[in-house]
């Protein structure tokens, strides 16, 4: 028996390899570098790794290959755009993660135990979150470039497992945080099971685990359609769970609220890009010819998701839960780009993902700033009058909310406009009507928060606003600048996306 060495195009795989290498070095740093040095070393290492990955990615833009890793990885325009978006979002998120104030001193200790108290007193800081972040990012950039079901599943788990852990690391309200982590893990495992089950059915249908093989089987027809339909349905469940679409959304409010806010920011923005990236590839290339079966169902899910996300958000009294429901609504808006199944829809979805991701990180970054002695204040009632106490925080938060609402001159408007017009072009009028309607509903609660911040007087127990650290400030400012720039002058990025976003099969 002889083995032939697989042919790998290292240059195309290098962003992923760099990330994994950086993560492994991070693990070694945990083991061998002294405690005092670790935070600085880890932060430098993580940012360095991410920047290196971005630079490497930039060098290989425009290349296309189906055989980068013996057919398991595909690299093309959309792959570049999605990976770049994930990496950029990750960099801004790491700025937030660098504020160790958010993370438990000793996550392994029981909440409220003597051991924990000692760890807090000794000024212990956890730095494991950095390699975990890098592992998650590696999984995320692999997710949209996977070219067969096994790689897709490996990437899914690679991005999910670190996130489950990270969700449980909060310094304050540790029980809620651990509960969130456990819920996320259990439900994630549950949905992964569906995903795998779906993969099995698709293999049963096509006798292939590669995307190309499945597509050929669908194009060729003649297989057992029941297997195909169940396969599509179950695989979709796994993906819809990750993006938080109704009715697979129930984890997200609890997890968004419980997880440390920097992790929420990272998860909300980057996971969405990764998961929608994978969805775009699968629906646009593999399942495109079985469109008759899934577009109506996905349209229904999109409509329900948009409406439920927007409606329930109105009733929320907690900033992080409100943002969670808003992210559910946005999952619905993004689904309309998937349903469009045309070039415009692809371009619009990629633009929307990036714009929304940046604004989301910015919004959560502001949330980390509003605190009192017991940590972050997420009760909306205590955000009253924030505009007077901290114009910086309130103004930038207002900007991100306006972007979420899709008000012109923000990136959100361009995103919504292009994604809805793509969906309209493809004939999905019902989705567009529901989208515009729920945008209007959503605007209500976004603007209510703005009114609360600027036009309502503060209550007695006013919260203090932390003087932002340079890194946090940087992430807010970057996010704000990008949000405005993409709203005022989106043409260069739109053109760039249009030129690059072509799937190869």
């Amino acid at each position, binding site marked *: 028996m002889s083995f032939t060495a697989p042919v790998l195009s290292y240059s195309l795989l290098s962003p992923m390899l760099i990330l994994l290498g950086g993560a492994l070095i991070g693990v070694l740093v945990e083991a061998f570098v002294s405690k005092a040095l670790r935070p600085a070393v880890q932060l430098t290492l993580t940012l360095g790794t991410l920047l290196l990955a971005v630079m490497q990615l930039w060098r290989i833009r425009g290349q296309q290959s189906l055989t980068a890793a013996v057919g398991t990885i595909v690299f093309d325009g959309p792959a570049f755009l999605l990976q770049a978006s994930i990496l950029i979002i990750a960099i801004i998120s790491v700025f937030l993660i660098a504020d160790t104030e958010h993370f438990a001193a000793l996550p392994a200790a029981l909440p409220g135990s003597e051991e924990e108290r000692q760890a807090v007193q000794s000024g212990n800081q956890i730095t494991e979150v950095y390699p975990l972040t890098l592992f998650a990012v590696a999984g995320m950039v692999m997710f949209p470039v996977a070219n067969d079901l096994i790689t897709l599943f490996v990437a899914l788990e690679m991005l999910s497992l670190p996130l489950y852990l990270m969700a449980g690391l909060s310094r304050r309200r540790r029980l809620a945080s651990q509960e969130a982590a456990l*819920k996320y893990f259990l*439900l994630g495992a549950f949905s992964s099971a569906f995903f795998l089950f779906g993969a099995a059915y698709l293999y049963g249908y096509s006798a292939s685990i590669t995307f190309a093989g499945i597509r050929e089987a669908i194009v060729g027809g003649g297989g057992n359609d029941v297997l195909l*339909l169940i396969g*599509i349905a179950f695989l979709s469940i796994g993906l819809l769970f990750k993006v938080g679409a109704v009715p*697979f959304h*129930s984890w997200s409010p609890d997890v968004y609220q419980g997880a440390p806010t920097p992790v929420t920011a990272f998860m909300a923005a980057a996971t969405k890009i990764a998961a929608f990236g994978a969805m775009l590839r699968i629906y646009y290339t593999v399942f495109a010819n079985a469109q*008759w079966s899934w577009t109506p169902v996905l349209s229904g*899910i999109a409509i329900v998701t948009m409406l439920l996300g927007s409606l*329930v958000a109105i009733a929320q009294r907690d900033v992080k839960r409100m943002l969670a429901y808003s992210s559910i609504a946005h999952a619905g808006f993004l689904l309309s780009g998937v349903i469009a199944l045309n070039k415009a829809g692809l371009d619009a979805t990629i633009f929307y993902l990036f714009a929304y991701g940046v604004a989301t990180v910015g919004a959560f970054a502001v949330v980390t700033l509003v605190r009192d002695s017991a940590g972050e204040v997420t009760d909306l009632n205590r955000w009253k009058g924030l505009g007077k106490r901290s114009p910086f925080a309130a103004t930038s938060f207002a900007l991100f909310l306006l972007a979420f609402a899709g008000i012109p001159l923000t990136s959100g408007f361009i995103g919504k406009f292009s994604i809805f017009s793509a969906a309209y072009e493809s004939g999905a009028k019902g989705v567009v009507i529901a989208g515009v309607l729920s945008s209007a509903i959503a605007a*209500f609660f976004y603007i209510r928060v703005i009114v609360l911040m600027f036009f309502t007087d503060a209550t007695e127990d006013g919260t203090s606003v932390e003087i932002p650290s340079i890194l946090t400030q940087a992430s807010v400012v970057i996010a704000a600048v990008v949000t405005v720039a993409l709203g005022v002058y989106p043409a260069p990025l739109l053109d760039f996306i249009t030129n690059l976003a072509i799937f190869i099969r």
Partner: protein
Amino acid sequence: MNTSQSLVYLIALPLAGAALLLLGGRRTDKWGHLLATALSASSFGVGLYQLSQMLGRSTEARPVSQKLFEWINVGTFNVDAGLLLDQLSICFVLLITGVGTLIHVYSISYMSHDHDRRRFFAFLNLFIAAMLLLVLGDSYLSLYVGWEGVGLASYLLIGFWNQKPAYATASKKAFVMNRVGDMGLSFAIMIAFATMGTVSFAGVAEQVENTSEAALTGMGIMLLIAAAGKSAQFPLQAWLGDAMAGPTPVSALIHAATMVTAGVYLITRSNFVFDAAPTAQLLVVIVGAITLMFGALIGTAKDDIKKALAASTMSQIGYMILAAGLGPVGYAFAIMHLLTHGFFKAGMFLGAGSVMHGMNDEVNMRKYGALRKFMPITFATFGLGYLAILGVPPFAGFYSKDMIIETAFNAGGVKGIILGSVTLLGAGITAFYMTRVMILTFTGTKRWDEDAHPHESPWLMWLPMAVLAIGSVTSGFLLSRGDALVNWLHPLFEHHEEHEHHLLEPIVVSGLALTMVAIGVAIAFVKYSRQEVANIAPENVSVFTKIARQDLMQDRFNEAVFMRPGQALTTTLGATDEAVIDGTVRGVGQLAMSSGSALRGLQNGFVRSYAALILVGAVALIAAIWVVVQ
């Protein structure tokens, strides 16, 4: 067309100044005003450079353009953000930056006691930048940006002392009335886009012959409304008097020399539209004629020196609009009067500021008197401006105003006689009220308040006044010598070279005008120089004076016709909004909250329920697919 890469600096320099001063905050307090003045002056320098370049080229090659970036590119609708500097815009560029720089210099001293001087200079620079964009834009859309920019700067500067509620109200009034005009401009742009598919000046000029007259008339009327709003023309004139709440340099720069003349620019720039739409052109003339009388009449009754000058501004712009409405023969004269007016009116406003400076900010002319001895330089510069606005030869106004009167008479037929008479009469009334201002302020007896100690202003203030006074004396002669300005602008306007018959010989017109002026001056002398002037405005005056004091009822008119119905409308809308729209939203909110509590049963925090929901969802999904496939 030639391109020039330096046009953008004209705008960028003052814009950078505004940005630096506003973002730099208190740190720039010490030197901010100097920076702003220097940047305005360097913009003037760029303008002079451009002029020298332009003079060096042949007539056809004079206009230069610069493409900045691709602005809008949607389907077939393409707008490039570009600048265009031609014979018309260079006049404006030099006026704006030249007079603007002088007024910057003046303000250094005038505003030296104001702790917010930096902010004032930032706004001045912002204004200069916006105004330059207005006259340099190569499309109606770029013009619109500048148009809104100057509106904003004007609002900020009128309300600069917004700690006084009346001033804040004045700025709001100016802003709101300007919005009406702005609506006109946006409608004009929409009409251009809808019927011609382009909004650039060149594009519209090309498409005029393929466009129906109805569309052109509509566009022309909308442009006229826009011009009326910005230039304080009837029926949108009411804001200008109140705008005098701003610091006096602002009144001189924005509300006399530059911004208020934007309407004249808009109409002359759109000459191709008006030449093809006689109805709109006739309306332009009518609006100009009405305003010129309107402003002149208000001017006779004002005791506030700045408001008297404001009324005069309104009236003089009426002359310009009227000239612009007379078609190709009038455009150049409108611009010439605009330029000379820019000199003498700015000079007089600065003079008024100088007087106020010496009189504890008193604006009531009945409390002045005999200031000639105490403020000789102010008296001299103001006096030269006075002679210029009267149209006494050889001062600037003589050349420009006489041309307009003459052109009005030559419009032909009854129209010509009416317009000519109106312009003549206006000249007489102008002479009356300006003489009144001179007499009340500089001659006669002292009617000062007790604590007034008039003194001449510092050199930083009188120097700009002196420069402007030189302009008031010479500009008319220089611009009309050998028809310099007419020939300069000639390539831009379609000139029908046929020589119309002259109703009156130029010399006769000049004679008539001077006679009217002499009568006006004489009446003012008899009325104000021979008799003692009360330092409190008399109450027992004729009904006409009363009406004129109330600005010819313009505010009452606006209140009755627009404000009250508008308020009623907004109240109704508000109630509807409250009941129907808010009701719906609240209803939806209620629905959401009640469904929220229903959904709270689902969102109960138990993982098992969430998992069950996912399972139910999965089953539903399969079922849905099955239904769809069937």
